């Protein structure tokens, strides 16, 4: 099996995977980082979103071997020294989750949205750009409120 190495949450990691191994499986199974979820496994729900070299992507539609040398950030890598990332804090304060299954993908996608659109990102842009992250509990209202609240603090 090919050996791969990359940076995950700032740490150098390596492992042996089959060519067909998806990035999400490498993260969850090889690295034991189970915060990244597999929702639909058909590239539609956004639960598996991580950042690769700073960009939000679906880790269920990315080959692990294709990430050789890349820098990957997962939900486990955004809190600093035990303090939640402003986006995590805002989801908590605004009750932007119920069951929590979609939340890691929501938060990784939302950080990317704020990074690209800035502190003043509008509700319309948030709703449009989160449209491929599916939540079956909340009705999205509090998620959008959380993203707007975090945007001001990021």
């Amino acid at each position, binding site marked *: 099996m*090919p050996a791969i190495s990359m940076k995950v949450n700032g740490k150098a990691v390596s492992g042996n995977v*089959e*060519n*067909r191994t*998806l990035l999400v499986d490498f993260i969850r199974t090889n690295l034991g980082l189970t915060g990244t979820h597999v929702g639909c*496994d*058909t*590239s*539609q729900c*956004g639960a598996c*979103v991580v950042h690769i070299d700073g*960009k*939000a*992507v*679906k880790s269920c*539609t*990315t*080959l692990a*071997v*294709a990430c*050789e040398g890349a820098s990957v950030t997962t939900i486990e890598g955004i809190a600093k020294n035990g303090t939640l990332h402003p986006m995590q804090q805002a989801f908590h304060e605004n009750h932007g989750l119920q069951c929590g299954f979609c939340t890691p993908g929501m938060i990784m*996608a939302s950080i*990317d*949205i704020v990074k690209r659109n800035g502190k003043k990102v509008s509700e319309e842009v948030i709703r449009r*750009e989160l*449209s*491929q*992250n599916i939540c079956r509990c909340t009705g999205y209202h509090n998620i959008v409120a959380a993203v707007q609240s975090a945007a001001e603090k990021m």
Partner: protein
Amino acid sequence: MENFNYHRPATVNAAAALLKKSKGGSYMAGGHTLLPTMKQGLASPSDIIDLTAIKGFSGITIGKSAVVVKGGTTHMEVATSAAVKKAIPALAELAGKIGGVHVRHKGTIGGSIANSDPAADYPSACLGLGATIVTNKRKIPADAFFTGMFQTALKDGEIITEVSFPIPKKSSHMKFPNPASRYALVGVFVSQDAGGKVRVAVTGAGPKVFRVPDMEAALSKSFAVSALAGISAKAKGLNADMHATAEYRAHLIGVLARRAVEAAK
């Protein structure tokens, strides 16, 4: 998903050589069609030749009369390019409507066009602007490129290296997305060139992207919504599925064409 040999060549020539040597290999760019297809067992290539590490395979050049987009350029790069927004705003808008953010970060123009999905967006920009598709072997006009559902004029092993879009006087893209997949239920791309000639290209409605000659002739005489009065698309031969009937799609072609003409800039 079946296993495969994986290659990440640094040049177009090396990629072509690897495909030729393989038993039944496939190129991969963003992989956002190929990997889901493989997961479903609908494709099982012996080799995947990943094109994303090829040097100089992505980027945008704005010439005097054309916008040239390299084959590996992502949808996000086109959607957010200030130069594309200025030269052909409808092209940047179209790229910004493909899938969602995560898809746009990975999906590429070459991959989209090579796949010729009947509901993909880029084919309508190619046909609607009269683009030229450049491969490692030759140049193919968009009118001769899309040959059928998931079928193109590309020969085995050919790689799309760039797409050259002539800069029109005015253009516009209107799309009625499937709310779940964001693929076009129907999409219409309209352009008017400097000489006043109009192209109207429709995606999502038929087995492949197609032009609407009646609308083009009327709009070439008078580029106004009123010119489209009395011209309707025929439902015969259009796609019908759980999302929409052929009649509904035909109706949408008219609605979206009128909106596109009104919004053209």
